[in-house]
């Protein structure tokens, strides 16, 4: 199994693990962690595509894109965390509650 194949399949698996965590969890912080895992999966795919041709030096353009992506991911995480903390401060809730379907409230 070549290096590219291994890492690209791993990146798809990471993306799916992150996606499942993002949808399934209700706690805000867990959603943020899941989002970061998804981002890491995408970056892994980009860099393994850059490394596909083993004879040459790694392609620098996807490297620059991933560097930009890491900084954007941390900005997004910082803003999301500030929002989550503010929500917790104002309402006291830390998770997105599901709307319970009640027959008599409609």
């Amino acid at each position: 199994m070549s290096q590219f194949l291994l890492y690209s399949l791993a990146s798809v698996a990471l993306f799916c693990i992150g996606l499942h965590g993002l949808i399934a969890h209700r706690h805000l912080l867990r959603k943020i962690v899941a989002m970061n895992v998804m981002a890491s999966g995408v970056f892994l795919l980009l860099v393994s595509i850059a490394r596909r041709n083993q004879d040459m030096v790694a392609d620098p353009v996807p490297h620059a894109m991933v560097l930009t992506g890491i900084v954007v991911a941390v900005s997004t995480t910082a803003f999301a965390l500030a929002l989550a903390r503010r929500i917790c401060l104002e309402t006291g809730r830390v998770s997105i509650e599901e709307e319970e379907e009640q027959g008599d409230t409609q």
Partner: protein
Amino acid sequence: MDFDQLLDLLLVTALLGVAWKALASPDLFKAVVLFIAFGLLMSLAWIRLNAPDIALAEAAIGAGLTGTLLLDAVRQMSVRQE
């Protein structure tokens, strides 16, 4: 299977395992610490893929700063709930 391939396979297994545990762990603090470990393993993966610039940035920003931000938020939110 030579040493390089074995190393890659072990690294990928560790990455996926730590990511899964980080998202499935019931304790929030443990989940964030596992996420920091995940970031450091990603750093190793970048080195294996010949991307030293990204490895430096991931270790500092991805694991370090994001981990610090998350730990701070976990502490504040768990204090709030008590």
